[in-house]
C-alpha cells in the first residue's frame, strides 16, 4: 500500500507541476452609454476612441500634429444612424482621454488598414457638442461614463 501511495503522490505531482495558471480575471476599463442626437450624412459611422492624457485637443486639426502618436485604442464600430449604444473599452490603470469621433470611411476599412489608420485625422469628424473627457482607470474597476450625448 505504501508503494501505491508513493506512486499516487508522484503522479499527482507530475500533473500539477506545470506552469503557473494564468486564468482570465476581472479587468479594468471604461463603459457606459452614448446617445446620438443627430448624424451627418457625410459620415459612414463612428467610434469611441481612447487617447493618451497628453493629447492636445486644440491641435487635433493641424496636419503636422501626429494624433496617432497619442492613440491608445477604440471601441467596436458604431453604425451610421444608431440612436444609442452601450460600449466598453478595456484599459490598463492610468489616465486617458475619451472621445467619440465620426468616421468619413467605413469603420472596418479604417480600423483594419494600417496606412489609413496612421493618418486617422484625415478621416474623422469631431462632434459639435462633445469635448474629450478625461478619465482615470483604477485596478479591476469599470469607470462608468453616463449622460453622454453626441451630435454630428
Amino acid at each position, binding site marked *: 500500500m505504501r*508503494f*501505491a501511495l508513493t*506512486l*499516487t503522490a508522484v*503522479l*499527482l505531482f*507530475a*500533473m*500539477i507541476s*506545470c*506552469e503557473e*495558471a*494564468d*486564468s*482570465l*480575471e*476581472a*479587468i479594468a*476599463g471604461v*463603459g457606459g452609454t452614448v446617445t446620438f442626437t443627430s448624424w451627418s450624412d457625410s459620415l459612414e459611422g463612428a467610434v469611441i476612441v*481612447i487617447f493618451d492624457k497628453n493629447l492636445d485637443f486644440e491641435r487635433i486639426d493641424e496636419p503636422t500634429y501626429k494624433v496617432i502618436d497619442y492613440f*491608445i*485604442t477604440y471601441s*467596436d*464600430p458604431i453604425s451610421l444612424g444608431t440612436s444609442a*449604444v*452601450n460600449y*466598453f*473599452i*478595456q*484599459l*490598463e490603470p492610468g489616465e486617458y482621454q475619451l472621445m467619440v469621433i465620426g468616421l468619413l470611411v*467605413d*469603420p*472596418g*476599412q479604417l*480600423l*483594419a*488598414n*494600417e*496606412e489609413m489608420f496612421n493618418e486617422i485625422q484625415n478621416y474623422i469628424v469631431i462632434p459639435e457638442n462633445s469635448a474629450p473627457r478625461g478619465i482615470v482607470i483604477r485596478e*479591476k474597476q*469599470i469607470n462608468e461614463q453616463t449622460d453622454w450625448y453626441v451630435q454630428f
Partner: protein
Amino acid sequence: MKNTSYSNVGISRFSLIIVILCFLLLGVGFPQSPTISGRVEDAKTGAGLPGVNIQIQGSSFGTTSDLDGFYQLSGLNPGEYTLSFSMMGYAPYNERNVAVALNIPVQLSVQLKSNVLASPQVVVTSSRKAQDILESPFSVATIGPREIQAKAVVNMVDILSYESGVSTIKGQLNIRGTSGYTMGAGTRSLLLLDGIPMLGSAAGNVTWATIPTSEVDRVEIVKSGGSAMYGSSAMGGVVNIITRNAPHKPETRISTKVGVYSHPRVDEWRWRDSRGLLYNTEISHSRSIGNHAAWIRIQKRSDDGFMELNWEEALNISAKLKLNFGSAHSAAVFVNVLDDKSGLTSVWKSSASPFEAPDGSKKDRTEGRKIVLNGHYNYVYSQDMAIKTKLSGYWNGWDGYGADPYYSRENRFYEEVQASKSWSSTFSSLLGITMQQNGVDAQIFGDHNSSSLASFLLLEKKLHQFTLSAGSRWETYRVDGHSQDQVFTPQLALNWKPTAWLGLRISTGQGFRVPTVAEMFTSARRSIFTIEPNPDLVSETSMNREFGMTLLAGQMGMLDLLKLDAAIFHNRFENFIEPIPDSEAVIHFRNIADARIMGLELGLGLSAFNNLIDYKSAFTVLDPVETNADGDIIDTLSYRHRYHWISSMGIHYWGLDASIEYRYLSRMESVELFDENMMTGADARVPVHVWNAGIGRWHKDWHFVLRVENVFQYYYTQLERNIEEERIMTFSVERRF
C-alpha cells in the same frame, strides 16, 4: 428568406418507411444460420468483460462483447472455426475446432486472465479491416465503453478533447493541429460513424448531437493522413465512432443526468440570478429477435448553458437494427432524428461581461432538424472474400431567428462498395468504390451542389515479422456541374512487430482536401469583418510522414499493464486553405503558399497494484508554420496550441471509481481576427489549464456518477472574444433492467 419547411425536404416519410420495413423484417422467419454466442468473463471475478474483441481467424467475421460481456457471431457458414478473444489488460485466448452447423446455435463462454505479458487490441479504421493495434501502419488511439461510461458524457466532443493530440475549438476537431479553426467552414479531420462519413455537406462541420453517445461501443482515432483510404477531409486524421450492437439479452436502460453551472468566480461577471441547469434523460431498449437484434434510444436534453445564448434544447431518437439473413448475409440500419433549438452568438458582449451576448443579439437562435440514415450490408462470399456495402443519407434543415434571420437546407448521399480478399495467409487486398452527392441551399452560401467519385485499393503483404501495405485512391470532384479536381493519392507503410509486445511503424502518403462549398461561397459578416466568396480556391494537398512505436506489456512487478506510444510526424501542405483578413477587413478563404506541421507525440498508460491505480498521460508538441515555396518560415499558423498535455489518474477501491483529469494547452501564438493589445490588455490569450474530477459506483443494476468539470473555474479563450466552459457539477443515475 426562402420558406422551405422541414417536411419539404421529403425525407421524414422516407426514413420512416425504411425504419418500418426494417422492423417488419424482424418478424419474417429467415432460416436459422449458424451462430456462436456466449459470455466473456474475468477469470478472477467472474464479471462480464465489455469490449472484448472476438475474431474468427482467417475470415472477415468478428464482433465485440457488450457491456455485460455477452457476444454473438452469426451469419457463419457451417464448418470448424478458431475463435480469438482479446482485450487490453487480458491474455489473448484462442478456442480451436469450434464446429457449427445449420439450426444448431453454439454456446461458448470463456474466461480471460488479467495481468498478462502482452495483449493485442484490435482496431478497424486505419486499414479498413480488423487489425492488431501493434500491426497498424498509423498511430491509432482508442476509447472504450468503460471510459465513455465512467465520464457519463452527453457529447462525444467532451471525451475527444482528452485524447492525445486532439483538441476542439467550438466543436471543430483538430488532430495534431491540422485543422486550426476555419470558422466552421472546413475541416481536415474526418468523422465517421460506423465507417460512414458524417461531415456536413456544405461546411464539412460536425453535428455532435447526432452521435448517440450512450450507445457508442468504442472510438478509434487515426492520427495520420487518411486520404488514401478515406479521401478529402481525412488528410489530418480520422475519428471513427462505432456504435454497439444490441446485447444478447433484452435490456432496458433509464438514465438521467442533472447538472448545475456555477456562478462566475469573478463577481463582476455574474450575469444571471439563478444558476444554470442541465437535464439529460435517456431511455433505451435493446433485444435480440431470432438472429436479429435491435436497440432504440430516446434522449431529451435541456441545457441553460454556461453563458447567455449557449442554451440548447434537443429531442433525439436513434435506433440500430442488426439483421442476419441466411448464412452469409448480414445488414445493419442506423437511424437518428434530431430536433434541436439553440442560442447563437459569435462573440461575447465585452471582456467586462464575457458571459453575456452582445446587445441586439439576445434573441438570436436556431431551430433545426437533422436526420441520419445509414445502412450496411455485408456479404461473405467465401472464407477468403467478403463484400461490404454502405449507404447513407443525411438531411439537415435549420432556420436562424433574431436580428439577422437566415436559413440552410443541405443533404448528402453516400454509397460505398468494398471487397476484401485474402489471397493467401500472408497476402490480402481490399478494393472499393465510393460516391458522394452533396446539395446545399443556404442564405450565406447560395444554392450549390457537389459530387465525388473515388476508388481505392489496399494491398497488404506479411513477411515474417513485417507487414508491408501499399494503398492508393483516385478521386474526382465536381462542383455545380464543373470538374473541380482529380486527385491520385498513394500511401506506403511498413510495420515491424519483432515481439508480441512491440510494434514499430513507418509510413508516408499523400493527402488532399477539396475546398468546401462554405469556403468557396460564404458571404457573411462577422464583427467588423466581412467574409466574401472565393470560387477560385483550389484543392490543398499534403505529404505526410510518420514514424512511431507502440509497446504493450504487463505483469512487471507492481505493474499490471504498461503502454507506451511514441510518434514523430511531419506533414507538409501545398495550397493550404486558411481564412485570411485583408487590409479592407474582408476575409477570404485563400490558398496560402505552403504550410508545415511537424511534431512529436509521447504517450504513457499504466495500471498498477491489481488495477488499484491507472494513469494515462500524453504529450504532444507541434511546430505549425506557414512557409513559402522554398520552405522558408513566414509565420506561425493561427489557432494552434504548440504544446498539448493530457493526464488522468483513476483509483479503483472499495467499489468506487474515482478519477481526476487534467488538460493543458499552451497559449495560442497566433490568431486571425483580434490580436492581443499590449497597451490595454484587451484580447489577452492565456494557456489552458482545466481540471476535472469524478467518482462513480455500481450498485447492483444502478450506476451513479458525480463529476465536476473545470473544478478550479479556470477562464480562457481559444477563439477570440469567446470565453470557454464554466464549472459544472453533474450527477448521473442509470438503472438497467
